[in-house]
Structure formats: C-alpha cells, structure tokens
C-alpha cells in the first residue's frame, strides 16, 4: 500500500485518493454528504492568499475547507 499523508500536506495541483476520516463530529458528516468519501479522488486546487483555507476539487466541483480539518483527513497521493 502506498504512503498516506494528511490532505493538508498534499502539494498544490496534486491529486490523491481519500482513505480515512475521523468518524466523530458534525464537520465530517457534512464532508461525507458533500461527497468526500473514502475512495473519492480529490485534487488540491489552491490555497487562499494567506495559506488557509484550502480549495479542493471533488466530484467535479470546488469546495473549501480549513487546514485544521484537512489535517485530520488521510489521503493517498496518486502516482505522478
């Protein structure tokens, strides 16, 4: 199995597959409902001018999330 990193450590422009998630917390239920599920492909599009929040592409649309939440989401970077 390839190495996993937190979503927050993904370089800008890179794509990764979402692996795991904290189970607790309202934030993470909403993430799921927005289509971020284990196995979903996400691309880190850019960060805001001050480095936080992050903009990701998921299921063909753009979503923002804070770095603090992205730290808890584990992804597996796709081979480049």
């Amino acid at each position, binding site marked *: 199995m390839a190495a996993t990193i937190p979503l927050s450590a993904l370089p800008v422009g890179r794509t990764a597959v979402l692996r795991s998630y904290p189970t607790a917390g309202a934030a993470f239920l909403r993430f*799921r409902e927005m289509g971020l599920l284990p196995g979903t492909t996400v691309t880190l599009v850019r960060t*805001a001018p001050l480095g936080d929040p992050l903009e990701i592409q998921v299921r063909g*649309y753009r*979503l*923002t999330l804070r770095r603090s939440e992205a730290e808890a989401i584990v992804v597996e970077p796709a081979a480049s």
Partner: protein
Amino acid sequence: MTSPVLPFPAPAPAASGRTPVYALVGNPNCGKSTLFNALTGLKQKVGNYPGVTVEKKIGTVYSQHGQPMQVIDLPGAYSLAARSPDEAVTRDVLLGRRSDTAQPDRILCIVDATNLERNLYLVHQILDLGRPVILVLNMMDLATQAGLQIRVAKLEKELGIPVIPCEAAHGRGLIELKVAMSRPDLPLPRHRWDIPSPIAPAVSELQASLVENDRKAPLSARAEALLLLTDQDTIRVAGSTPLSGRTAEILRSWQKRWEGEGTDWAATLVSSRYDAITRLCADLVERDDRPSNASSTSDRIDGVVTHPMWGWLVLGGIMALLFLSIFTLAEYPMNWIDGHIASLADLVKESMSPGDLRDLITDGAIGGVGGVLVFLPQILILFFFIGLLESTGYMARAAFIMDRLMSRVGLNGKSFIPLLSSYACAIPGIMATRTIEDSKDRLVTILVAPLMSCSARLPVYLLMIAAIVPGDQVPILTKVGLMLLMYALGTFGAFGFAWLFKRTLLKGVPPLMIMELPPYRLPRLRDVVLQMVERGGLFLRRAGTIILGISIVLWFLSTYPKAPEGASSQEQMAHSFAGKAGRILEPAIKPLGFDWQIGIGIIASFAAREVFVSTMGVVFNAQSEDDEDTAPLRQALAAAKWPDGSRLFTPLTCLSLMVFYVFAMQCISTIAIVRRETNSWRWPLFQLAYMTGTAWLLSLVVFQGGRLLGF
C-alpha cells in the same frame, strides 16, 4: 447483508379539488431562485417563517390551460440532515413538521446538470419521502459546454419520475416543466436502494411510532425515521413540531444501543447513498474529456481573483467601487426623497390648521419616518451589490480570501461582507448575515456590525471635526486623519468585541469553512433587482412600525410640556421633557465633557445619529436656510459656554463626543432589525447596553485622560 426497504410505488392520487402545492428544493447555486422567478414572475409573496429568520417565498404558476398551482420556494440545502436554520426549515416543511406550512403535495427538485453527483444526494433523500417528484435538470447548456451528455430518458426510467431538462436562465424547458407540473397523475418515484439491514428494525419501529403517535404518512414516516436515526446533532428551529414522547423514547433507546456498538450508521448510510448515485451516474453521464471552457474560464478568473497579490487588489478595488457608488449614486435619490418629504410636510402644514396634531404629523410622523427613508437608497444600492456579488460567485471568493483574517477573532470568512457593508449602513449588513450558517457566529456578527462607522455618523464626525479645527483653512490632513482615526476605532472595536464574545458569551466550536466555490456566472439582473426590492420591502415593513412609534415618542418629548406663548424653538426645547431629560442626564455625561444641551442632542439622535446635527441647530438656535451650510452652527458651537463661562466645545469635548458616537448604539432602525433577526428583545437590548456602556467608558477615558495630560 442488505435488504431493500422501500416498496414499489402505488399510483399517486390525482390532486383534484384544490390547487396543488409544490415545494421547490435544490442545492445552493443550482439556479433555484432563477427558476422560481421564471415560473412565478412577479406573482410572489415574500415573508418569514414565524419564529425563524428564514425567508418564506410562495408564488403561483399557471399551467398552459390557466390552472393555478402554488410553489413554495424552500431555502437551498445540501442535505436533509440540516446544518443551518435555512436547511432546517427545508427539512421541516418537507417532513410536514411545521404547523405554519402544510406538507407540500408534490416536490419539484432542481439540480445543476454540471454537478450531478453531489446534487443527486439531496434528490436521493427526497425520493425517500414518498411524494410525487419532478426532477429539473438545470443548466443543460453549461453541461453540454462542459462536455457532459446526460441520458435523460434513462434517468426517467431509473427513477420512475418525470425528468425535465431546462435552462432556467434562458427560459428554456419551462413549458415542458409546466406541462409536467399540471399532470394529474404524477407517479411516485420508483426508488429502491439498499440500506444496511441492521438498521432496518430500528427504522421499522420508529416508522410505526411516527405513524401511530405523530400522525405521519407511512412513506414520509420511513424517511423521517431514517433521518432521525442518523442525524444526531440535528438543529431545531422555532415553529417545528416536536416528536411525541413515545417516538422520542424509541429513538433514544436505539441511539444508545448503537453508541454501545460503536458503528457509525450515519457514515454508512451516506456511503450507501453515494454508491447508489455513482452506479446510476456511470450509466447516465457520458463525459468527453476535452477541457471544458466554462470551468477553465472560471479557473483563469480565480487565478487572478485569489492570487496572493492580485487577489487583494481585486478585493480592494471592488470594495472601493462599492463604496464610491453608494456615496455618489445614493446622493441623488436621497436629495429627492428629502425634498419630497419636506414638501409633503409643507403640504400638510398648509392644509391643516396649526396645532399639536399638525405638528405631530409633520414633525413626528413625517419627519421621523423621513429621516429613516432617506437612507433607503443607500440600503437598496447595498442590497443590489450584495446580490450581484452573490449571483456572480464573487461573494464566496471574498469569504475564501478573508477567512484566515476573520479566524483570528474566531469568526469565518462569511462574516466579512456583512461587516464591510456595515460601513455604509448596519441594516443591510445585519440582514446579509443570513448566509452565515452557524447561529453563534451569526449572532456575534450581528452584535458587532453596528460598531463599523456607518454613513449616518459622517455628519456628526464632520461637524465635530469642524468644531475642533475651526476655520476653513485648516490642514486637510488633520481632518482626514481624525476621520480615519474614528473609522479605525470602530473597526478595532468591532473585531475586539467579536473576539471577546466568541471567547465568553457565545463560545462555540471553531467555525467551519466548508463552502462550495461555484463557477463564475453572469449575474441575472432581473433576479438581483427582484431580491433587492424584496429585501428593501422587508426592511420597511419590519422597521417601519417601530421607527414610527419611537419617532412619535421623541417628538412628544421635545414638544411637551409647552413653553409659554411666543417662546423660540430653542426655549421650547429647553422647556420640554427632552430638555429636562438633558438636565437629568447631565451628571452622568458631565465627566465626558458634555452639558445638558449636548444631552438633548444625544437623546434626540437616538432615532438616528445624524439627527444630532439638526438638534444642535435647534438647541443653539443656529438654523440656517441651507442644510448644507454648517457655518452658522459652527459659530454657535464655538460661542457656546458652560455656566461658568468656559468654552463648551473644546477640542477635547469634541473628540470625546466623536468617540461616543463611534461606539454608542444610536439607531432605532438597527435595534428594530436586530430584534427581528434574532427574534427576541434580549439581543438588541444587550447590544444597546454594551455599546452605549463602552461609548460612555471610552469617552470618559478620552476626556479625563486628556484633561490629565493638560488639554
């Protein structure tokens, strides 16, 4: 192991006898408002759901044969597991939980065809409800541009409901939609999906109880049972019917049992819905992989707009343009309104015999309401700009850019625009806080918004600056510097209090910043104007009565008791209740450097801050024919003395007075709006107390500190 839970459809009863009621639902940014406006035209009623500040919009659509149908435009939602008051209202109406709104007969689901998977999540939940559903695939043109081919007939067959491709922004597909809506025999969705079998007994038991104890329809009860079991942090809003005791008890016992087992059924359920959607979409959507124009244009714009350097310039430029247009464009209609209110008052004066009733009408009612109406152009222009920023998609970018800074005081990027708007007027700012999902964040933003120096403070600042540095040949930099100081003071005050409130009174989880960045779209002028008119009307209706009431009270206070015959307006003011109140107030404000005459100004300007200037004109008997010319008033202020002969308006007193106006809550319109937006008197009164308390304290520090330093 899984088992299908939802049964095959029974034929839906024909909606005969009465007008069918449709609920219009969809994700934010999918073109829902555009479709609603296109369907109903101007035949809309805009109000509020009682107890919550969520807009309630109802419109009438006519079928091709002139048969009327009602459409309720429900707030945009991503899921029935609500995370904001808006989403909670959508959920409650659909589940028939609101006593003020009957459960809709049929549901009109609108989705963004360019973003089918995520949009279908809500549809999937709605299909559970067991009501006839029509699915509208909006933005088909953009989907084609993006290289997406959607097999509409296949989708219809899979879901068993009418699917109507549509371009609401260009009016395409509306006729087909109206034809479908007027069908008497809309089928129920053929909706089968596998829910994990361990949940099934819980769903059945809860469903039975909902039917028996809460009088719910069986299918709707099943959907509600699923939702109740998997949405534990659910938010409740006023006006929602609570569960019966028995049902709540069953729910608690299942939740307890699952907590012990440690399985996250909510997550499992979301995954199984998305699995079903992914399977569906694999067959439905053909994607050619050429890079799409629409999304790459959006990306190019974002390359500039969210660029580490250009981003700030764009943001600054847009905000500068916004304020420039508010202050220049608004001037003409403001003068026009001012003129007409004056001539209306004159007309009444001519046609009625002199007396208190006449004065009550002209000075109390017309004058008081006019003083607020004058700000309507600014408020409308601001609503227009906010609408424009929202509909183009820039609003989300501004929140994205500003989030980091706003997080320093515990808020998120969505508080930025409301606070910024408050520089012009706190009312549109406070009404714009509705886009903030978290209720505590929203409340904090509402509480601090009036600290941003609004345009009504400008006349007060200008008069005081003129009094500090008399003569017209003063260095312009001193004036500008003083003005900037006041704005900075208000801004730091707002952020300071936001920080304080988030740490003490309204402590909550750190706010999230889960926000969709929709592609940039050309704004629909009609939708933006319609929304501006609706919000302006809402403001007038909400604030109107309170403003009228307080204007009359303030008129009464400055008119009675009557001074002896032949007294000047200056003597009348001194003799009135307001004059007496000024004297009673004097001990409290003397430490700030104010005498009882300034006290009258403070009391009178409680209606609106700029009234201070005209009140000072009356109090110091320095009214000029031309409102714009403050020279006589400046001279009068310079000549004003304390009883011991020392100068009243020393630079220090003026500075103290300015600081007072930066912080004091001197605006009944704002109080009225905060009362409406927070649904209680508690928060506007708290706001009044903390702001005026701070104003008093800081003015005291300025005046006494200045004196100690020898000014």
